[in-house]
Each structure stands twice: as C-alpha cells, then as structure tokens.
C-alpha cells in the first residue's frame, strides 16, 4: 500500500529460470578501480557469477551488454558472495565466493581495451578451500583485531563455525545447542560473532572464547574434559527474541557507537552491544530482507526494508519515512554509489530481477481498471429503460415482498365436525368433577387445485380445548389430489373455553416457473365444535345470581327444538326451560317466557353465560332462517351488568400483575443463582482450595427459591388464561 513506486534507474533480468537468495548480491569496487564507485556482483544458485557496472543508457547505445562487465559459469551453486581484503600481502579487495563444499577467492581485474569494444575484465582464482561440511553462510572481518586483513568465518549446515585466516584454515568450533543455521554476523567493535539460534535467541560469541574453546574435531573426547578444563563454548550474552530471524547487520554510527539490527520474522529489533533492546518495531507484514544504513541525522539510523507485498519501506528508527512500490519481492537489498548517481537502492528478486532504483513521486503501479465503457446511444437506452420499467411495474403488481391475497388458492381445505360424539373418548383427562369428558372427531379434507409442495396443516382451538394432533405433515400433492386427516377435539382443562370455533391453517409452497422451490402460501378455514363437547343437559334452576334477558320480536319457540340434543325427556313438552351443565361444574339455565317474546339466561357464574347466550342467538338465527323469517331481531334491553364485568376485569388485571411480579422475581433469583455459580466456579478453579464459606448452602437455597418461584408463577399463570377467557365473553356480550 503506497502512493508511489520506486523509480527505475537501471534494471535487468538475469538468466532464465535461475534462482537467487539473500547472500547472492554484493556491491563494491570489485575491480579496485579506485574511483570509489560501486559495481554490483550477483551469483546464482545455478553457478553463474555476474558483475555489472550500471549506468544510464544514452539513447542509441546498446545498454545491457555494455553494463555487464563479466559473466562466468562456476559450475557449483553460489550461496554467497562477499568483497573483502582476503588475500595476504595485498590491500586490494578480492571476491570471496561460497559454494556448498568450497570457498574460493578471486581477483577481478579490468584492462583497458585498445579496440572500440571497451574494457576487458578477468576473473582470476587466488586460492580456494574445500570444505568438509556443507556450508550455509559466511561472514568476514578482521577477527581478533588484525588490521588490513579480512578473515572468513563459514557456518556449516550442522552448526560448525570454520575460520579461515586467508590462505590457511585456522580452526572450527561447534555452536552449542545447534539445530538449524541462522544468520551470522561479525561485529568488529566487540570482536564477537552474532547469530540467531534455533532456540530463537540472539547469541553472541567472543572470538577469543571461540578460539580457546575445545576443538571441534576433538569434540567427542573433549566433552568429558570440558567440564574440568572449563573451555566449553558459552555465549557472551543471549537475548530471547521468540521468533526466527532473517538477517543481522551491524551498523556503526561513529567509531564509538554502533547498533545491532536483527530482522525477525515479525519484528525489527535494534540492540545495543550488551544485548539490550534499543528499540523494536512490530511489523504488520512479512519482511523479506532489510539493509540498515547510517542516516544523515545525528544518532538515528535508517533501515531499508522490503516485504512480501512488493514494498520498499524506509524507516528512520521506527518512523516510516517513505514507502515505495517495487515490481517484485526482493530477497536482497543494498545501497550503492554509481558514477552518475549516488545512493541508489539495488534490489535482487529470487527470479533474478536486478534493479537500481531511487525514490520518486511517480504514482504507484496501481490504477483502477476502467469500468467497461460503452457508447451511449440515448434512444436505445431510453427504449431499454422503458421496457425494463414496464417489466418492473408488471412484476410489482403480481409479486412483491409482501404476498398479495390470491383470488384462488391452490389448496382447498374444508373441515367437518362429526355430528356425534366419539364412542370412545379420546380426551386426555378421563373425567372432570366426576363427569366423563367426551370428544368429537373433526375431519379435514385437503384438495389441491394445482401441484403443491410439502403441505403442512396446523389445527388450533381455543384453550382449554385441545385436539389429539395439532400438526400434520403431508406429502406433496399433485394437481387434483385429495387427502383426509382426522383428529379429535376435547376439553383439556378445568374451565370452559371462550369460544368453540377452531382454525385450520395449511402451509404449503406452490412452485412457479421462476421459483421451482415454491412460493410459500397459507390457506385457512374455520370449524365450530358442538356444545355437547362441554355440557350435558340437566334440570333447570328456578333462580340464580346472574340473569340476562334477551328480547326478540317473534313469538317464543320450543327450546327443545332449538337444542334438540339437550332435550331432556321430561314432562316439559313446551320446552319452556332448558339447563346446561358444564363438565367443569357450573350450570346455566335458559327459560323461555310463555307470554312475552323473551328468554332468560341465568346462572350462578356470570362468565359462563356467554357461551350459552351466543349459542342461543346463533341457533335462533338458524331456526328462523330455516322457517323463512327474515326480520328476526333480538336485543338486550336491561342495563348492561357493568359492575360484574368490571369485577372480572379487575380480577384478571390482578392476576396479570401477579404473574409479572413473579416473572421479575424469578429473573432476579436466576441472576443471583448465576452469580453464586460463578463464585463457586472460581473457588473450584483455584489451585489452592479455599473454604467454600457456605456458598454451597447459599446455592442450594437459591435453587430452592428459584424452583418455588417458578412453581408459584406457573400457578398464577394457570388461572390466568381461564380468567382471560372469562374477560373475553362478557366483553363481547357487552358489545352486542
């Protein structure tokens, strides 16, 4: 993520299918030309050694071939190239090339050509060492404080440091606790070697300590001796990083102060000599390589960092100063001075992209791709828009988020209630107050007009009425198919229901062309249960607490005709009186006046009268309709019994308030219960068991409280629906 990209000054691609890594890049005045300008030395795992002297190509000149000074195939893979004073009796820079089993030191020399092709460069082998162990990386420096010479230290894959004092092999030492090789670096100021071991710590070894430690070649025998002689190799200091490291650099500000830079896999560390952290920065990306260099400012250091998101970042200490986009992920980065330009960033990617670039304000590579632009023909667009609008308008009419009522349902359900009560009652409660509870069969016919998918039927009746099965899942029906389900309805509570009607709802999905899974639809129908389900005939009462008088405009009818199933075989042939005894206990009497056109409903229980009154009015309507009388009216003349009504409302309200109170109390106790549980949990989790301090008793007590409250709440709720029902009927009757 950056605003700018690094500006290419010079770039080339090396070889084809060659592989490069961290150590393969090195810059310096390799041919000792004395100009102070750098050349770029690149070695590859395929064994190619190349030297470049990049310069800005002038128009019309062959660029690449001109910049390349040398290309040699060395047969063995090149792991690392370094420039240093590796040859005794010479102050000149020589090139050390590390192969897996060999380290070679070459002299590079240039001769001025006497033809127009330019200078000629040569590679001359000065000396080489064959290695006993496979090499991993190397470092060089004036070990032990020698002046004017550089020695080489090679780390092998199995953890041996091999020291070469120029043409001679000095000694080898095994690093203690070694598993996998880490980056290696020599610090001249303290004469120490720094590495990051597999234990994920920076380890610093003094050259002296290494030199006097037991010889690696005699290690096996030496192990026994080491305890007594005290020559066992020990790190000068260690610092635990907790992560693997990619690279280490030493950066000197002046002759006295210097810093150790360690690039971890996830952080950048800057350490002091003694191994304390000077500063660190947590990186929010995966770094690939870095290169610290001294900043212009006093006491600050700059770090060039490259990451796997193709970014080149410049930090001053930990503050990001510049971020530039690169074309590829570099594995090595250096700063070099060339003839035309100083301070160029040289980067090498693993595929061999060698770039010399500088920071510039070229915008980054990223440009948003163009949205497919098409020629706008306004007439066509208008026409398309119109046709689309038309389609939208039409579809909005037919289908919407909220479904519209269909004129015809795909599924037709009809419910029929059998006229007789079941011979064997299906009721769950066998008897209430000593009376057997009857049940009645309801038959639901399902007929499909079109194919419907997975219809489900739900039956719902007013509590405390119940049905033997309230949900049916049917198989998908084809067009014109028909199925029948049956169920039984019965009373399942100690109080009468407010209403005898029931609802049947069928839920199904009808597939359409666009939506093969089906559009969900619902259809429903009603049925009404017989009064016989609730009451049986009994002897009428002459007087009762509550009375309602219904006036009609027609002469009185024989109640036995209106309620044939309740006709009591008694001497009252005129049907002037009829009584209903509810299974739940109470009874209601209906008295027909012989002279006037009035009927009286009376009962000990105000709310029970509703069902009978409603049934009576319904049956009268039916009766007179059958006789062809159209102008039948009935009315209620007396004052509305509001006092009784309000009493019931009050009672209902009280119950509701109680229920709410219990609910609150219950949630309060539940919170308390959880709090105790939590405390107990902490106690049990403690390693040192603390006394429970009666928490268990408290928990037990709260548990009992919760249970008791739940019980009480349930008991309050139980009458509540009954009471709710008892509010409902008077409310309706007062409206009517």
């Amino acid at each position, binding site marked *: 993520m950056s605003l700018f990209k690094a500006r290419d000054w010079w770039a080339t691609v090396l070889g084809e299918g060659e592989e490069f890594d961290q150590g393969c890049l090195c810059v310096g005045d390799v041919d000792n030309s004395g100009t102070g300008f750098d050349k770029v030395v690149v070695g590859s795992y395929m064994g190619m050694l190349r030297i470049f002297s990049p310069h800005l190509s002038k128009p019309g000149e062959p660029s690449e071939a001109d910049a390349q000074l040398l290309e040699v195939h060395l047969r063995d893979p090149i792991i690392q190239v370094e420039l240093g004073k590796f040859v005794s009796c010479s102050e000149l820079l020589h090139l050390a090339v590390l192969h897996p089993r060999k380290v070679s030191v070459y002299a590079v020399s240039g001769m001025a050509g006497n033809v127009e092709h330019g200078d000629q460069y040569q590679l001359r082998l000065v000396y080489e060492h064959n290695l006993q162990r496979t090499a991993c990386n190397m470092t060089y420096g004036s070990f032990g404080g020698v002046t004017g010479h550089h020695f080489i230290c090679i780390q092998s894959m199995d953890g041996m440091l091999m020291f070469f004092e120029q043409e001679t092999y000095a000694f080898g030492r095994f690093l203690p606790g070694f598993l996998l090789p880490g980056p290696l670096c020599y610090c001249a100021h303290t004469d120490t070697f720094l590495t990051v071991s597999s234990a994920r710590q920076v380890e610093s070894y003094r050259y002296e300590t290494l030199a006097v430690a037991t010889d690696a070649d005699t290690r096996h025998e030496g192990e026994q001796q080491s305890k007594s002689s005290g020559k066992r190799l020990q790190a000068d200091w260690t610092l635990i990083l907790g992560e693997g490291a990619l690279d280490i650099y030493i950066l000197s500000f002046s002759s006295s102060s210097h810093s150790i830079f360690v690039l971890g896999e996830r952080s950048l560390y800057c350490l002091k000599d003694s191994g304390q952290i000077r500063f660190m920065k947590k990186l929010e990306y995966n770094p690939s390589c870095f290169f610290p260099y001294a900043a212009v400012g006093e006491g600050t250091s700059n770090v060039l960092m490259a990451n796997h998101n193709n970014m080149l970042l410049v930090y001053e200490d930990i503050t990001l100063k510049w971020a530039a986009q690169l074309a590829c992920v570099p594995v090595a980065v250096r700063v070099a001075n060339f003839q035309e330009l100083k301070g160029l960033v040289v980067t090498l990617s693993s595929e061999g992209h060698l770039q010399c670039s500088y920071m510039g304000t070229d915008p980054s590579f990223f440009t948003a791709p163009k949205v497919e632009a098409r020629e706008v023909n306004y007439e066509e667009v208008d026409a398309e828009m119109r046709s689309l609008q038309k389609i939208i308008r039409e579809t909005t009419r037919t289908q919407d*988020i909220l479904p519209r009522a269909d004129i015809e349902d795909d599924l037709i359900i009809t419910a029929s209630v059998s006229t007789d009560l079941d011979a064997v009652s299906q009721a769950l409660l066998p008897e209430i107050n000593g009376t057997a509870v009857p049940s009645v069969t309801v038959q639901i016919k399902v007929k499909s007009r079109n194919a419907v998918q997975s219809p489900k039927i739900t039956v719902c009746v007013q509590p405390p009425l119940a049905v033997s099965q309230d949900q049916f899942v049917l198989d998908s029906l084809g067009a014109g198919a028909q199925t029948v389900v049956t169920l039984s309805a019965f009373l399942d509570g100690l109080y009468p229901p407010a209403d005898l009607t029931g609802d049947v709802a069928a839920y199904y999905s009808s597939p359409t062309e666009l939506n093969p899974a089906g559009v969900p639809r619902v259809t429903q129908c009603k049925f009404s249960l017989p009064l016989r389900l609730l009451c049986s005939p009994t002897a009428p009462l002459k007087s009762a607490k509550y009375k309602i008088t219904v006036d009609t405009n027609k002469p009185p009818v024989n109640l036995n005709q209106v309620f044939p199933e309740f006709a009591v075989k008694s001497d009252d042939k005129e049907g002037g009186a009829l009584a209903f005894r509810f299974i739940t206990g109470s009874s209601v009497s209906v008295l027909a006046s012989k002279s006037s056109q009035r009927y009286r409903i009376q009962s000990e229980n105000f709310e029970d009268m509703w069902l009978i009154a409603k049934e009576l009015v319904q049956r009268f309507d039916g009766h007179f309709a059958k006789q062809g009388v159209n102008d039948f009216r009935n009315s209620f003349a007396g004052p509305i019994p509001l006092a009784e009504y309000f009493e019931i409302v009050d009672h209902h309200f009280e119950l509701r308030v109680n229920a709410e109170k219990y609910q609150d109390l219950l949630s309060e106790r539940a919170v308390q219960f959880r709090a105790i549980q939590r405390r107990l949990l902490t106690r049990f989790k403690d390693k040192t068991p603390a006394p429970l301090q009666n928490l268990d008793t408290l928990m037990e007590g709260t548990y009992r409280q919760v249970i008791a409250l739940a019980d009480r709440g349930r008991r309050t709720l139980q009458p509540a629906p009954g009471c709710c029902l008892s509010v409902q009927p008077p409310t309706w009757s007062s409206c009517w």
Partner: protein
Amino acid sequence: MSQSVLKLSQNDLSRERKESDSALPISEAAWSLKTRALTEMVYIDEVDVDHEGIAEMMLDESSIAQVARPGTSLRLPGTSQGGGPSPAVRPMTQSGRPITGFVRPSTQSGRPGTMEQAIKTPRTAHTARPVTSSSGRFVRLGTASMLTNLDGPFINLSRLNLTKYAQKPNMSKTLFEYIFHHENDVKNALDFAALATEHAQFKDWWWKVQLGKCYYRLGLHREAEKQFRSALNHQEMVDTYLYLAKVYQRLDQPITALNLFKQGLDHFPGEATLLTGIARIHEEMNNITSATEYYKDVLKQDNTHVEAIACIGSNHFYTDQSEIALRFYRRLLQMGVYNCQLYNNLGLCCFYAQQYDMTLSSFERALALVSSDEEQADVWYNLGHVAVGIGDLTLAYQCFKLALAFNNDHAEAYNNLAVLELRKGRIEQSKAFLQTAASLAPHIYEPHYNLATLAEKIGDLQSSYAAAQKAEDAFPEHVDTQQILKSLRQHFAEL
C-alpha cells in the same frame, strides 16, 4: 523426494532410536523445519484473534461491578462523554457503539449486558455468535492438520513425550507453536509450555507469554494476566504489552488497558501497534475525538496505516465533513486499496460533498467489485439513499428492494422502504416493513420511531406508545420521540 525424507525422520523420532552417529540431529533439523513450515501455513497473529462466545461473555467470573461507572467499562458505552456522536448522525452497532471505519474482530461483537439480552438478541445470519469460543472457529482452524497430510497428522500429539522435548530448547519453541497454532490443542500446549518454562527455570519470558496465551484461550484471564506481567518483568516486548492489554479489554478494564498501552509507549515510543490499540479502545468507549487524535499519531509514525486512514475518514464523514473524508478515502485508493467498501464510501462522500458526477460512477465500481451479497445489499442501500437525496423516489424504491433481495436481513432498507410505502399511502405494507425492521434490529431507533408515528396517525395509540418506548430505549436523547411520548402520556392522562 523431500516428503519421503521427512517421513523417515518422523519415524526415527517416534521410535526414538538412539543412533550414535549424527543422523539424529539432521533428522531433527528436518523435522523442526517441517514443523515450522506447517505452522507458518496457518499462522495468525494471536493479538488479532478475538472471538468471544456467549458462554465466555456471561459466565466470566471476573466482572466485578455489573453497573460500572460511566467511562470505565466497555459494556456500557457512554453516549455523551467525549462528545460521541448521536445515533441520529452516526449509525450504531448492536452493542450501542458508533460504527467504525475499519472492520476488526472486536467491532463485530456486541456485548450484551445480561444473559437474557444475549439470548434474546435477534440472530440473523451475520450476527449469530458461537455459544462458546472453544468450539466453532478454533476447531475449524484446527482441522488444518487433517488436510495437509493424508496419512493423518504430522505429529501424533498423544504419543509425543512432552517432557523430553520440553528439555530441548532448540526444538521446543517450534514444537509449541505447532501445537498451538497448527493443532490448536491448547491444553497440550499449556502442559508443554509449563514443562518448558520449568526447564528454563522460569527465566524465559517467551514461555511465560505462551503460557499466558494458552490461559487466555482457556478463558483463565487472571492467570494469563499473571504470566504476561511476569514476562514483562523479564523483558519488555511490544507483543507482551498487546497481549496483556487484550486480557484487560476482555476483563472489561479499558482504563487499565489504556494505562498499560501508555506504559508500553514509554518503553517503545511511537510504536504504531500500541497507538492503534489506544485509539481502538477510545473508539470502543465512544470517545471519538481522542480516538481520532491517536489515529493521527499512528499516521505520524506510519502514514500508510490503512486502519487509521479509514477511521479518520469515516469520522470526518459522520461529522459532516465529507470533503475531508473524501481526501482520506482518495488517499486509500491511491495507495492501492481497491475494493467495494472503499468505492462505496467514496460514492457517499462524493454525494454529500455535492460532486454528483463522481457519485454514480463510484457506486458503479463498487457494484462491479462486490464479493458477497451483503456488500451488494449495502451498496444498493446507499444508492437508495442517493436516490432519495435527488428526489427520484421510484429509483430509491427499487434500490431498497434490491438491497432486500440481496440481504433479507437489512433492517435499514426495510425501514426506508416503509417510509416510501407510507408516502404512497400503503399503510399496511409500511407497517409490516417497520415491524420487520424493528424485529431484525431492535438497536436502531428509526423503525421504532417511525412505527410510533404511523401508529399514532392511524389512531393505534397503544402500539404507538409501545414503539415510542422502544425508540426511547434505543436513543434516549431523540427529541421527536420524547415529543410523541409526551403527547401520548397527556392523551392517556386525559382519558
């Protein structure tokens, strides 16, 4: 080729044959290398992992005060302190925080106050949270071991001699990371770390941090805190500060976390991750002004910090400075952030900054870049807003419909659609939409308020009152709601 070599080394190790020559160290090295590689494949920085399940949230024994003082808890984001924006200006998340400019794991988690609330919170496909964090995502991450190797896991943990490996400092750290990150076997990791720290004589800060990480995963926050503290005593590290602050945030002690971050900044001045941590806490505490200050500090350290730019940008947007917000978003675009959300934000900023020519093309690009239905729904929703703004109600209607077609749980779209339906005079439809919106997102006040107004108009005072009360719960300072409530109360009193 390499596969067979590694396989061999594994067998060597499991059989624990002691061979006298150097074959064993080499096989150990290869084994260690493969372990590292496998870990790196699934490595996620533990600082960023945050997954709080309902059980962890409700049964944490560490919460001290249920009703914390304002400004000391993350659970009750104070609405007024520090001049936090009101929900009328900046939309709120379910937990009552203003929505942030950058999606982080913790911004998606609402913290319901009680168990009841947690259970009652409506669950759409996006807000569903796992019941505990030990199931769900971590387990899914843990199955990586099954996928990589057809012959079963690379290391059979149950057969591993933990004590033996804990005594090898050059292998133990790699092995631990493998157990923790790749196998996700926190209990074994904990045992291993305990053995290793013992072997290191309790002097290695790294092992203490790992112990802390294990304890944190197991929900033992106090123990985790102890380990992290002890690790800090040995060695100051940025990561340790971040972990410890994360523990304090989970313990709902944002002030302590803030102090800790500041302490960390004393040691590592200008560390961007610490500054970001402070900014995030301020943002979660609804103290947007301070959060913005800290985000600016982050940008001083690292001016390519996407989170900081996005958060400052969104803050400018919601404080009616869409031109400035536009500059921030444009910067993100120039930096190479190229996604649907950015173009969506650019489109909105352009619209409110009255650069109408750019608005639609930004949204066009946003639509071209969508990666999921939810994003598409959001873009269409915003387009609907623009359409309302330019007065094209038909287009707005269609946009909101499209938003719903892509995300059926888009409560805001339901709400706006309801308003449009009401303008058309379709009261029943409007009511249905408002009710849907209110049930999908009880935390936004608009549907409640609209429902209250609608119900009042059609004379359903009871539902109007109920809805107005819900609106008041969601946004207590909303003046219009107050007025409705006042007039309704007056009306009821007169009856």
